[in-house]
């Protein structure tokens, strides 16, 4: 996909905004390893989505593309984990192991359009990160550049395969997806606070509970039901 002149202007404006944002955000204390770890988690999740898609698509050609893509994403996750570990100076938590099974929920065409959007966003982010680190940490910049090269290729092939009419649906889903994630992140502190309060309010019940039973207990009836 070749961007037109309007796109180029938009990208350049985006790029400038991104540079400002990342210059600030990478400098926050403890931010570097967390951000690299989050990237690694995203790449690992993407690898799982693509392996899942490879096993479900009816097209062997697409299965092959998804498998290659998944292999790249898994390699990116390893690279980013390495740099996150370096930045933290100690071991990292386990990468989360889950994915949203987008292929199943969206269907192949919208899935492809959604992946294309993600790759385009990823490519723009990595361009900004490479610019940021090129003078400050050339080795990390080189690692990110190697990932960027793959992102460009992924963006191209998914763009070629994604049907134009599915892109609107993918955009809608993307917005909804981000809204839900942001909503969950914003409401979680409220939920946690309420649960802490509920725990305190319910605590007198603990006085009624007594000790947990020990040893063998006599048989009781099964509680099957509906």
């Amino acid at each position, binding site marked *: 996909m070749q961007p037109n002149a309007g796109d180029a202007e938009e990208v350049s404006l985006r790029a400038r905004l991104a540079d400002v944002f990342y210059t600030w955000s990478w400098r926050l204390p403890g931010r570097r390893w967390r951000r690299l770890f989050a990237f690694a988690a995203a790449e690992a999740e993407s690898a*799982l989505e693509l*392996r*899942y898609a*490879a*096993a479900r698509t009816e097209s*062997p*050609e697409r*299965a*092959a*593309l*998804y*498998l*290659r893509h*998944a*292999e790249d994403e*898994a390699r990116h996750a390893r690279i980013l984990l390495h740099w996150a570990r370096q930045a933290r100076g100690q*071991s990292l938590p*386990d990468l989360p*192991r*889950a*994915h949203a*099974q987008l292929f*199943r929920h969206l269907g192949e065409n919208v899935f492809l359009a959604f992946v294309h959007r993600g790759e385009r966003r990823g490519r723009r982010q990595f361009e900004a990160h490479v610019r940021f680190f090129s003078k400050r940490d050339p080795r990390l910049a080189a690692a990110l550049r190697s990932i960027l090269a793959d992102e460009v290729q992924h963006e191209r092939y998914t763009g070629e395969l994604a049907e134009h009419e599915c892109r609107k649906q993918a955009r809608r889903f993307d917005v909804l997806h981000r809204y839900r994630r942001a909503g969950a992140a914003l409401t979680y502190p409220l*939920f*946690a606070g309420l*649960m*802490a309060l*509920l*725990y*305190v309010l*319910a*605590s007198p*019940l*603990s006085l009624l*509970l007594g000790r*947990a*039973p*020990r*040893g*063998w*207990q*006599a*048989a*009781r009836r*099964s*509680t*099957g*039901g*509906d």
Partner: protein
Amino acid sequence: MPAVLGVSAHYHDAAAALVIDGKLVAAQQEERLSRVKNDPSLPMNAIEACLTLGEIRSTDLDRVVFYENPYRKLERVMVSALRGFPRGTAFFRRALRSQLGDKLWVLDDLAAHLGVPRKRMHFVDHHESHAASALFCAPFGDVPHSSIAALTVDGVGEEETTAIWRLEDGRPRRLASIAYPHSLGLFYAAVTAYCGFRVNEGEFKVMGLAAFGEPRYRDAFDHFLQVEGGAFTLDRAAFADHLDGARAFGRPFVEALGEPRTPAQKWNYRGQRIQGEDARFADVARSAQDALEDALLTLAEHARALTGATHLVLAGGVALNSCANARLLREGPFERVFVQPAAGDAGGALGAALLGAQDEGDALALGEPFCADLGVPIRPATAAAIADALGLRTTAVVDPNETLAARIAGGDVIALARGRCEFGPRALGHRSLLARADDEALRDRINARIKKREPFRPFAPAMLESTAPALLRDAPNDMTPYMTTVCRVRDRSPLQGTTHVDGTARAQTVQSGPLAPLLRCMESHGLHSVLNTSLNGPGEPLAATEADAIDVLIRHKPDGLLIDDLLIERPNR
């Protein structure tokens, strides 16, 4: 034609099983299809696969049975959190989030996803599902029901962690149980976390590690896990599962055993020995394994006294401890012991489906040998097309078993995918990586390069049942076809690559199935066994589909992949 679906989900290792007309037609773990190891989510992929294999639609289902009681489970979780007040704030929050988020509404969710009326949704108790999966799948057709006891030993179900059962009128009847928080599963989980492994996944590693250690910490474990009066209790101060499921052990562990191991650190392993500071973790593992085995022997003796049975079946996650199962058979009071290969939570779906079929009035065919190849099939034509698109080399071989035998005899590591995927954690020849069993260097190569796992972990040999007496000191038994036990290896047996440091092997004895013709061909190459390990990479579920198998080939680089008569190889090999 009653069709009953059993479902386990929302803890770890979700699965579905389908019974039609009293016959088990399909069982599938969700992880194999979602590609997320131990995937706990509602197993919609597995359900779809089971329905496809049963050639029915979801609306044809007469009954859907969930493997545990979600309401009693919520009650236990709340009680447990309140008992931990005030330290259980985070646990309370997490528990309510998961219970109220998914678990409490699971029957409604299933009904909505399947388009099946809510009144067809049912549940049974967690341990009853386990008991049914063991009792109904045991190969004890010639034995009266009164002679068979079941022992279910788990982390925790609703509130039970351990129970003794027997069949009455063809239905499992609970005779006695031990309640949470006293749990052998949680005991072993704490040791797993202490040794730096992931809980609910690294328990096999602790068992393997134990063989390298001495029981130097047995006194500490006798304090943490006290066995008395045919039962056991945990010293709750030493455990933290009610505060943090991933950490699972408390301060007394650290005071008695030292600092825990940092996860993912490289092991200090050389020349079949674990050295330096890591030797302490081997000693901890050995001490814990011994304590667990002694507790299980006590439970088995109690089960024998309570039931008078001569045959024992086990289920629950702890029943996957193959070393303990071997000791139960060797030293316990039962003539025969059986553990089906999906004894963990995935097997709960199997038990739930079989119980549901009984409730529908089906007569279950009991006592027949259990066939584990219950999952999705593999299609060579699809594999060939994907391989071509990836630029891999494909060859249609005339005699696949002979080709495979020759390649293995020549020192290659070959992936084999045949027929339907196994149900349960063991690869039994349908999705396996195979190699010579007599080559220690090959074992180390597979551990380091292909499986990329801890260097101390052993591999299993598969052999014809007729050959086993010449290779093993222990006779083949009801568990050896499923790799749910270990056997002592004869001195000078050509099993150097698959014999653990303690002189045992988790041997698979084969009479039929995909490995039988291969093993016969291997005889002509002077080999009487084959190293058989699961077809996957580190942290990945067993390969199920063509794409998964090819993914293993291109990423983990075994020397070839054989799918029926199609040999796939990397071009630059």
